[in-house]
C-alpha cells in the first residue's frame, strides 16, 4: 500500500491523464445530477408535502391527480374504514398568475391546490390565506404580494412560502378547499365538480395504523379506488425528462468504470516487469492488487475533491430563473459513491492480469 501511495506521490505525471478524465467525469456526474434534481425534484414536492399517510385516487386515473374523480359516496365509505382518522379533499388546477399592478404579459404558470387537511405542517389553511412554493419567491413574488389568477384575475394574497412543494416543475399556490372551489368556478367552469365529488382524497390514519393494510382496506371497501402511500404516489409521477438524465448518469458511470479499467490495464502492462520482480521477492497477489485499488480510489478522491467545489461554484453562478439546477448534498454524495464504485470495479478488472504475472518471467523460464 505504501508502495502504491509513494508511486502516486512521486510520479503524479503518470496519473494525470486518468485523473483529469476522472475529474471531468465526476463534474459531469454531479452537474447531471443537479440538472436531474432541478428538473425532476420540483416534480413531486406537492405530493411529498401532503400531511397524510394515504392518497385515494379513482382506479381509472392512472395515479394522476388531474385525471382522478372520486365520487361523494366514496368519501363516506373511506371515512368508515377502520384506522382512518380523517379524510379531506385534494384538488388541483393549473392557472396563469400575474402580479397585481405588474406587466400583464409577465405571466407565471402555477399549480393551484385546494386542500382540506393542509400542507406540510399547516394543518388547515385558514380561509382567505394562500401559501406559495418557494419557487415563486425566487421568481420575485414576496410575502404580501397579491397575485391575479387565471382569466378571471381572481386575487390571492400570498401569506408566506413553503419549501419543496413544487409540482411538475411549477411553483404551487395552496388555498383552502372552499377558496379553491370558488377559484375554479370563476376561471375554469368546465372543471367544476358535482357537489361532494373530489379529485383525490387525503387520508390521515390513526396513530399506529399500518398504511399498506389501510390502503388495501379502503380499496376493498370502495371497489373503485387505488389508494397509495404518499411515497408511492410521488414515485408514480413520471420524471419530466422521461428519465433521460438518469440514463445519461448511468452510462457516464459505466464509462468511468471503463476508463479506470483501461487506465489500470495499461499501467499494469507497463508494470509487468516490476510486478514480476516484486512477486519474485515475495509480494503476494493481494498486496499488488490492493495497491492498484488504493491508487484507483485515491485518484478518484482527488478528482472528486476538485469536482465538488467546481460544481458548488457552478450552482452559485447559475441564476435561479435560468437553468433548472438543484444542488442536493445527498445527490452529490451518491454521485461520489457511484464514481468510487465505478473506479473500484474498473480497477478490479486488472485482477486477472495481475494474477497472471509469473515471477519467473523476470529471470526467464527456459534459458
Amino acid at each position, binding site marked *: 500500500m*505504501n*508502495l502504491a501511495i*509513494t*508511486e502516486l506521490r*512521486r*510520479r503524479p505525471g503518470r496519473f494525470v491523464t486518468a485523473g483529469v478524465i476522472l475529474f471531468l467525469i465526476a463534474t459531469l456526474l454531479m452537474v447531471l445530477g443537479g440538472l436531474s434534481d432541478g428538473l425532476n425534484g420540483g416534480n413531486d414536492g406537492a405530493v411529498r408535502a401532503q400531511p397524510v399517510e394515504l392518497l385515494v385516487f379513482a382506479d381509472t386515473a392512472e395515479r394522476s391527480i388531474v385525471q382522478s374523480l372520486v365520487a361523494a359516496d366514496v368519501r363516506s365509505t373511506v371515512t368508515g374504514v377502520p384506522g382512518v382518522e380523517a379524510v379531506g379533499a385534494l384538488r388541483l388546477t393549473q392557472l396563469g398568475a400575474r402580479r397585481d399592478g405588474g406587466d400583464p404579459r409577465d405571466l407565471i404558470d402555477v399549480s393551484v391546490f385546494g386542500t382540506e387537511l393542509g400542507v406540510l405542517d399547516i394543518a388547515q389553511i385558514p380561509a382567505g390565506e394562500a401559501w406559495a412554493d418557494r419557487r415563486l419567491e425566487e421568481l420575485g413574488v414576496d410575502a404580501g404580494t397579491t397575485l391575479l389568477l387565471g382569466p378571471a384575475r381572481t386575487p390571492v394574497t400570498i401569506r408566506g412560502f413553503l419549501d419543496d412543494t413544487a409540482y411538475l416543475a411549477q411553483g404551487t399556490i395552496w388555498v383552502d378547499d372552499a377558496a379553491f372551489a370558488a377559484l375554479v368556478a370563476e376561471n375554469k367552469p368546465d372543471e367544476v365538480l358535482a357537489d361532494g365529488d373530489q379529485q383525490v382524497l387525503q387520508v390521515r390514519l390513526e396513530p399506529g395504523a399500518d398504511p399498506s393494510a389501510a390502503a388495501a382496506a379502503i380499496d376493498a371497501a370502495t371497489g373503485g379506488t387505488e389508494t397509495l402511500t404518499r411515497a408511492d404516489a410521488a414515485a408514480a409521477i413520471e420524471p419530466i425528462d422521461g428519465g433521460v438524465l438518469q440514463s445519461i448518469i448511468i452510462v457516464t458511470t459505466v464509462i468511468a468504470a471503463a476508463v479506470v479499467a483501461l487506465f489500470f490495464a495499461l499501467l499494469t502492462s507497463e508494470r509487468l*516487469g*516490476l510486478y514480476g*520482480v*516484486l*512477486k*519474485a*521477492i*515475495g*509480494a*503476494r497477489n493481494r*498486496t499488488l492488487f490492493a495497491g492498484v485499488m488504493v491508487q484507483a480510489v485515491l485518484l478518484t478522491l482527488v478528482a472528486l475533491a476538485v469536482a465538488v467545489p467546481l460544481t458548488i461554484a457552478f450552482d452559485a453562478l447559475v441564476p435561479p430563473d435560468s437553468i433548472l439546477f438543484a444542488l442536493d448534498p445527498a445527490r452529490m454524495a451518491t454521485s461520489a459513491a457511484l464514481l468510487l464504485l465505478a473506479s473500484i470495479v474498473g480497477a478490479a478488472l486488472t485482477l486477472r492480469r495481475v494474477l497472471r504475472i509469473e*515471477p*519467473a518471467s*523476470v*529471470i*526467464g*523460464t*527456459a*534459458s
Partner: protein
Amino acid sequence: MNTTPSNSSSNASLVLDGVRKVFPTGDTEVVAVDDVHLEIAPGEIVALVGPSGSGKTTLCSIAGGILTPTSGRVAVAGTDISSFSAKELTGFRQQRIGFVFQSVNLVPFLTARENLLIVDELGARRRADARRRADQLLDELGLTDRAGNLPSQLSGGQRQRVAIGRALMNQPGLVLFDEPTSALDTKLGDQVMQLIHTEMKARSTAAIVVTHDERITRYADRTVHMSDGRLASAPLAAVH
C-alpha cells in the same frame, strides 16, 4: 550427474535431488532440466554456466522457489519446498531467498534505502529493525551517501550494489544472482563480483551465480556447467 562439494553435509543451504522440469508446449514437451543433483554448502558460491537454453535459469528459478520441479526434491536450508503451494513459495521466498536480477530491476520511484526496505514492507514488517538493517547494508555497500537517491540518479554499479543489498535484507540462506555483471563493463563487473564474494563469505550465505561469462567463475568456489538441461562435471574453481 552428481555435483556435490567434498564437504557435503546435512545442513546444506541447497539440495537439488533428481530435479526435473518439463514444460508442455502444445502436443510436445520440452525438458528444461533433467535429473539434476546439486548440493551447496553454507557460504559456498557456485557459478552456474552454460549456453543459452541450457536450462540454467530454469534451475535457478527452481532453486529459488519461483518454479516448482516436475519431479525431484528441492530443499533450502533443510526445508523441503518441492511440494509447496504457490502461496507457500511466495512466503518462503520472502523470508529465505535473495534475488539479484540481470537487469537490476529496482523499483524506479523508490530511493536506494526504500528499495531495501520494500523487502520488509512485503514481508515481516519489522520496521525499526528493517531500517537499522537497511542502513547497515547501505553502509557496508558504500552507499550511505546515496541512500536518498532514486535508481535513475545512481550509476550502474551503484544500482547493482543496491540490488545486492535488497537481496540480503531478509538475511537469506541462499542468494540467486542472474547474470549480475551482464550490464556492467569488465572493471565494474569485477568490482561487483568481488563485492558479492565478500558479502556472501562474510555472512556464510550460499549463492548461485548464473552467468555466460567464464571470467567471473574465478570468484566462485565451484563452477557447475549445464548443457541440455543436465549438469556436467567441472573442476573446482580457484577461490579469489
